[in-house]
C-alpha cells in the first residue's frame, strides 16, 4: 500500500522525464543507424551504377570495368522460379491450416513445423539442398539455388496466407455454404477474393526476403562469371557476387559490390514499401 502514497512530486517527475529522454534517445539511435546504413550504401553505390554495370559481363580478376548483367538475370530468374514453386504449395497449405484442418490435430503439428521452419537459419537450408541435389547431380546448379530459395519462402507464405484467411469473417463462409456452393469454390471464389490484398502482400514480402539471401546460394547456385547457359550449371547471382567482390583485394570489384548492394537494397525496400502501402490502403478502406 505504501506504493500508493505519492512520494514527493519532484523525484517522480524526474524519473519520468529521465525515462522519456532515454527512450527518445534510443529511438533516435535506431533511426540514426538506419540512416547511416542507407546513406553509406547510396553514397558508395551510385558511382558504380553506370551503363556497363547493367550491360556487361564481369571482367577477370584485377581488370577494370565490366558489369553484372549475368548476375542480375540469374538472381531474377532464380527468385522467380522459387516463387513459382512455393506460392501454390504455400497457399494450399495455408488454406489447410485456416479452412480445412481447423478441427484436426494434424494442423497443430503443421503449424508448429511452419513456425520452426521460419526460424531455421537460411544457411542450413543451403547445406540441406547441397546434400539433396548438388551431391547427387555432381554439380552446383541454378535449380538447386531456386529450390533452396523456395524452401525459405514456403513457411513465410503459409503463415501470411493463414493469417489473412483467418481475418475473413466466418459469416462469409457460412453464407456461401448455405447457398449450396462446394467448399473449394467458397474458398477460391469468395474467401480468396476477400483476402486477396493480404495474400499478395505476403507473397511480395516473401519475394523481397529471398531476393537478398546469400547464405543458401553459396552452396547451391554458387556463382559464375559467364552468361547463363543452363540452370543445370552454376548460375551467377548478385548476392554471392557481392560477397566474392567485397572479400577481394581489387578496388574496382569492391566498388561494384557497393553498386550491387545498392541495387539489391533498393529492390527489397521498394518492394516492402509497395507491399505495405497496398495493404494499408485496403485496411483503411475496410474500416
Amino acid at each position, binding site marked *: 500500500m505504501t*506504493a500508493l502514497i505519492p512520494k514527493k512530486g519532484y523525484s517522480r517527475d524526474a524519473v519520468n522525464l529521465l525515462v522519456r529522454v532515454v527512450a527518445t534517445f534510443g529511438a533516435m539511435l535506431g533511426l540514426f543507424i538506419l540512416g547511416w546504413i542507407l546513406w553509406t550504401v547510396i553514397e558508395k553505390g551510385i558511382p558504380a551504377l553506370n551503363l556497363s554495370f547493367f550491360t556487361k559481363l564481369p571482367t577477370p580478376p584485377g581488370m577494370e570495368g565490366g558489369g553484372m548483367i549475368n548476375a542480375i538475370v540469374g538472381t531474377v530468374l532464380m527468385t522467380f522460379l522459387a516463387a513459382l514453386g512455393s506460392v501454390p504449395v504455400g497457399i494450399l497449405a495455408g488454406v489447410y491450416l485456416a479452412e480445412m484442418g481447423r478441427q484436426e490435430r494434424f494442423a497443430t503439428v503443421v503449424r*508448429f513445423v511452419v513456425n520452426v521452419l521460419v526460424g531455421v537459419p537460411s544457411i542450413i537450408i543451403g*547445406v540441406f539442398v547441397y546434400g539433396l541435389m548438388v551431391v547427387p547431380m555432381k554439380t552446383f546448379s541454378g535449380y538447386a539455388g531456386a529450390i533452396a530459395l523456395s524452401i525459405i519462402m514456403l513457411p513465410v507464405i503459409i503463415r501470411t496466407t493463414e493469417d489473412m484467411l483467418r481475418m475473413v469473417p466466418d459469416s462469409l463462409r457460412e453464407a456461401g455454404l448455405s447457398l449450396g456452393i462446394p467448399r473449394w469454390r467458397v474458398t477460391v471464389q469468395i474467401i480468396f477474393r476477400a483476402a486477396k490484398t493480404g495474400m499478395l502482400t505476403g507473397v511480395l514480402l516473401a519475394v523481397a526476403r529471398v531476393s537478398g539471401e546469400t547464405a543458401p546460394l553459396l552452396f547451391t547456385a554458387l556463382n559464375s562469371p559467364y552468361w547463363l547457359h543452363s540452370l543445370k550449371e552454376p548460375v551467377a547471382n548478385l548476392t554471392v557476387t557481392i560477397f566474392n567482390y567485397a572479400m577481394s583485394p581489387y578496388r574496382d570489384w569492391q566498388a561494384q559490390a557497393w553498386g550491387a548492394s545498392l541495387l539489391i537494397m533498393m529492390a527489397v525496400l521498394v518492394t516492402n*514499401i509497395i507491399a505495405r502501402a497496398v495493404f494499408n490502403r485496403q485496411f483503411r478502406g475496410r474500416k
Partner: protein
Amino acid sequence: MLARKPRRKLFVWADPLFVWLTRICASAIALLLVVMLFELISDARLSIQTFGFGFLTSTDWNPVTGKFGALSAIYGSALTTVIAMLIAVPLGLLIALFLTELAHPKIAPIFNTAIELLAAVPSIIYGMWGLFVFAPYMAKHVQPALADTFGYLPLFSGPPMGLGVLTAGIILSIMILPFISSVTRDVFNMVPPVVKEAAYGIGATRWEVTRGVTLPYSLRGIVGAGFLALGRALGETMAITFVIGNSHRISASLFASGNSIASSLANEFSEASDPLYLSALIELGLVLFVITIVFQALAQWWLGGLSKKGL
C-alpha cells in the same frame, strides 16, 4: 431441379480432391523438416562416427591433420549472440516504449516504418557496411577508447583491429533490434487500455504505468520474443562472416577474431574437398539446426497461451 442434378454429380469429386490437395501440401511441410533432419544426419555420419561426442567439446580444427571439433565455433556463436542480446533487448524495449507511449501520433508511423525497413535490409548489406564502414570506425574510435578505460580487463585487451567478436556482436544487435522492438511494440499494444487508464487515473506517471502495468502485463510476450530473437541471432550468417575475422580459436578478448557456426560454414564449405572435412562442416550445421529447433520449440511452448499474432 432436374437440370441441376447431373451437374452436381459431375463435380462431386471436386470437394474431397481439393481438401486432400491442401492436406498433401500441408503434409509436405511436415515431411520437409523430417527429411532435412535425416539428410543432415546422414551427410554428417562420417564425422559423427569419427569424433563421437568429442566433436562438441574439442577445440581442434585442423583440415591438414583431419582433426575437427566444434567448440570454438559454438563459443563464437554463443558469445556474439550474448553481446547482441545485451545491447538489443534494452534498446528494443526503449524503442517499443517510445513508440507506444511517448511518440506523437504523427511521428510514430515514421519510426514504425523505419523499423520495419531496418528489418527488411538483407544481411549482406549489414555485412558490407560492417566490413567497410563500421569495423574501421570501431578500430579508430571505439576500441581504443574501450582499451583506455577498461584495458585492465582481459575482455578488452589486444590490438584494436576493428574486425572481431565485439564488432560482430554489435552488428548482430543492430540486425535483431528491429525484430525485438516491433514484437515488443505489438505486445505493449495488447495491454488493455482500461488497465493503463486506471493507473493514469490515480495519478501515476508514464514511467510508473510502464513499470507497474505494461511491463508485468507483457513480460511473457517479451521473453518469448527474446527466445525468437536468440534463435535468429544464432543463425545469422553473412553479416558475421564479413566481420568476425574467421579463426578457429577461443580468446578471452572481445577484440580478437573468432568464428561462429554459420560463418565457418559460409567460409569453408566450398574449399572442403576432403570427405571428412565436409562431413565435419555438415555436423556443425546439424548442431546449429538442432539448437534453433530447440529454441523455436521453447518459444512456442512459452507463448502457447498468447495470441499468435506477430510472432
